[in-house]
């Protein structure tokens, strides 16, 4: 029996028309070329991740795709197509019709990317109004709908609120909602989860994954390989304005071909156990371990409580930190980890509980009585730039720290102090020519090294490290983490390591405290806590950074 002829399907080899395609894209500002010969394609239902460190040209590439590279930019491309049409010839008016309707774009920081003077509902309605979507009532209804879609609770109330009245996670959702308002076929997101807490980050990533599953294309930019693993189908690794490697996520991350991709993977702390080196940076000149190193518990806290205006910041926190060990404290913003650090440093007095430093009372005595202990515990925090006097050179900062009076110690003379400053710089791997520079003219990694050198000046036994690598690029972060491990080995330092990044804590810590709402919800050896988390909050934090499908990477 003859079968009636069916309409012929297109041959399998014919590629569907991609949403967006750029061929040999080059962008320059002034005399500088920041994007060199980049080619990329995004199809419907596909997620492409653009990965690279700061200055690699990933944001400029994304902005160029929508024709908003910025003033003074020179853009050249062999092909630049939207759904098969050449957009290079398009007028500005024609391009505007694609922005918002064809391509939704989510900028990096929601606090500054939403207009602070307008309610978020109006911002979400923006694209609808600009592209003449229905009447007022229809637009209102759509705003409600898209706010529900991104899981903003109580949309009617939230729509009337201003960005500063919303939490970071809600702001980011509102920004994503404004990009999704017209349900565009392509969504571009520039670092959509940077600066968000782990669980909020996970929710935002799920949201983006949901958008992709509706046959939408997604192009997102990130520096975080964990995010790539979780969300992307394909990944393009950028460095110095070029794509050095591109392919399916599984291939690229498990069998990287390019040296830079391997370098990035090697620098990911979550993939390497404590003790493994993350970078190929040369080891600094450190003295051989000496005899008189501190031993046993150097810092201990017992039943700490702190309340601010009726709000509990820290509740019943106890820990013991031994010389040469690292205690990691993880938790989201507001979990009490920073207050705990301030109490440990003797900057905030606990309402109840005690801290002992080297076996002596530390939190209770008057400042005068405990000052002789102060040099034992030093702080390095996230943003070294604001911790330095901007008018002082590194040399002056270090010399000043060396010459600071310590009770019971002789203050070194100028020549001796200068020698010690040079020695400190060498120990943290600061090149000699950086000593006469000002903090503003150092790179992020050099600043953090200088901050470490200053912290080491009074020969402390405990360092409180408050998010010490959060502001650094992956490969610089790797170098600083390696340095911290080497310093710990050489001087028997104890670290109180505070971070929201579980990968970093996992790599650095011997023991770990998980905090939530001021309480310690889980404590124990890092290996045990990360391998078999007992508390639901720990599990939620870990799930948030682990890939949806477990990949048998180097672990």
């Amino acid at each position, binding site marked *: 029996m003859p079968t009636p002829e069916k309409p012929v399907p297109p041959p399998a080899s014919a590629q569907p028309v991609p949403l967006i395609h750029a061929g040999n894209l080059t962008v320059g500002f002034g005399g500088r070329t920041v994007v060199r010969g980049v080619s990329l394609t995004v199809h419907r239902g596909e997620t492409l991740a653009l990965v690279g460190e700061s200055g690699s040209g990933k944001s400029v590439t994304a902005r160029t795709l929508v024709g908003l590279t910025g003033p003074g930019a020179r853009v050249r491309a062999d092909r630049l197509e939207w759904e098969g049409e050449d957009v290079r010839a398009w007028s500005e008016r024609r391009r505007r019709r694609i*922005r918002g309707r064809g391509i939704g774009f989510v900028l990096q920081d929601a606090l500054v990317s939403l*207009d602070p003077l307008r309610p978020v509902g109006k911002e979400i309605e923006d694209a609808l109004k600009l592209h003449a979507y229905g009447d007022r009532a229809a637009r209102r209804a759509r705003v409600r709908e898209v706010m529900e879609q991104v899981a903003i609770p109580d949309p009617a109330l939230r729509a009337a609120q201003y960005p500063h009245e919303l939490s970071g996670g809600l702001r980011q959702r509102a920004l994503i909602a404004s990009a999704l308002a017209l349900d565009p076929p392509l969504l571009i997101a520039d670092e959509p989860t940077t600066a968000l807490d782990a669980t909020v980050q996970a929710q935002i990533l799920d949201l983006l994954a949901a958008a992709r599953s509706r046959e939408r294309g997604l192009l997102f930019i990130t520096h975080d390989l964990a995010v790539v693993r979780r969300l992307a189908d394909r990944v393009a690794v950028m460095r110095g304005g070029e794509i050095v490697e591109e392919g399916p996520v599984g291939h690229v991350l498990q069998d990287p071909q390019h040296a830079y991709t391997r370098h990035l993977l090697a620098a990911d702390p979550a993939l390497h156990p404590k003790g493994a080196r993350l970078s190929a940076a040369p080891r600094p000149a450190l003295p051989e371990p000496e005899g008189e190193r501190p031993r046993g518990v150097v810092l201990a806290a017992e039943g700490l409580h702190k309340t601010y*205006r009726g709000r509990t910041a820290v509740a019943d926190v106890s820990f013991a930190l031994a010389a040469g060990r690292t205690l990691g404290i993880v938790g989201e913003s507001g979990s009490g980890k920073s207050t705990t650090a301030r109490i440990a440093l003797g900057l905030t007095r606990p309402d109840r509980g005690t801290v002992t430093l080297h076996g002596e009372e530390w939190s209770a005595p008057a400042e005068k009585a405990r000052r002789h202990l102060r040099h034992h515990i030093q702080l390095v925090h996230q943003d070294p730039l604001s911790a330095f006097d901007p008018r002082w050179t590194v040399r002056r900062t270090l010399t000043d720290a060396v010459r600071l009076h310590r009770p019971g110690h002789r203050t070194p003379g100028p020549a001796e102090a200068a020698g010690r400053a040079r020695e400190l710089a060498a120990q943290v791997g600061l090149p000699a020519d950086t000593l006469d520079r000002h903090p503003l003219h150092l790179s992020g990694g050099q600043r953090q090294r200088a901050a470490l050198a200053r912290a080491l000046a009074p020969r402390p036994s405990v360092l409180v490290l408050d998010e010490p690598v959060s502001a650094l690029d992956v490969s610089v972060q790797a170098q600083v983490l390696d340095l911290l491990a080497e310093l710990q080995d050489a001087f028997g330092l104890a670290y109180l390591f505070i971070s929201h990044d579980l990968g970093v804590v996992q790599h650095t810590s011997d023991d770990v405290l998980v905090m939530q709402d001021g309480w310690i919800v889980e404590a124990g050896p890092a290996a045990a806590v990360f391998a078999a988390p007992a508390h639901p909050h720990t599990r939620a934090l870990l799930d948030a950074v682990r890939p949806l499908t477990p990949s048998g990477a180097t672990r």
Partner: protein
Amino acid sequence: MTATVARLRRYGVRPAGAALVLWAAATVTFLALHLVPGDPVLVLLGGGSGANPTPETIAAIRHAYGLDQPLYAQYLHHIGRLVTGDLGVSTSLKEPVAGVITQQLPATIELTALALLFAWLLAGAVVLLSTGRGALGRALGSGLETVAAGLPHFWLGVVLLYVFAFRLGWFPVAGGTGIAGLVLPALTLAVPLAGYLGQVTRGALLTALEQPFVTSARLRGMSSAAVRARRALRHALLPPLTLSGWAVGALFSSEVVVESVFARQGIGRALLNAVLARDLPLVTGIVLLIAAVYVLVDLAVDLLHAVVDPRIRTPREL
């Protein structure tokens, strides 16, 4: 408890501050007029050397005005009178001060309001027309503003009079009634002020245009001109709004010059005459009026600020 304290601060501090400003104004005026060399009685009797009053007359006048009492007693009397709301009688015009002020005030308010309006329009036009026209437009607009801000009122007034009144005859030379007589003096006040307003507005607009939320709006499909006028401009309004509070006070003092140049009635001229005549009650009355205007305008600016910027309306949760 903290809420009560916050409310007390909010509703208590302002009136207290206002009272302090008024008291300071009254005290400074009193001291200034008493520290100026020369005998106020001689001025009262008709201008220093010309007249030749007998010592008895002088003593009688001195006693009548309370000038024979010690300075602190005069001061307490002066403040005590003001507290009861009695501004006294002008010594030079022999009329109640309150009456003189209400008579002169309307002309001055008209002039101030129109000058402020002109200044805002001029500044807004120059800024909106010169940004977004590249570096040359910006430099041109910015240069124009700097020159305008530096123009002295008396010179500008005379030039405007010469060109538009004497040469072109569009406006009356002196006095004049209604809007026609108001335009040139208002412009004289407005042009330098527009220079200041323009400079701060331009700075704020350029800052706002670099903010990511502006890019966000463009990424939704908004045109560059619409973003400037409908998004960034609102952010750029805050600094000139703050400056306008100061400007109203400054306009009152500039009117001393401008009202004289254009031979207009008004508070400025009345103040000038009162100072020359060492008319303590009238000077005090006018100075208090200007201080009160300052306080009120400051309050109005704060309220307007909250209208433009929602972040001020809802104090951040701690």
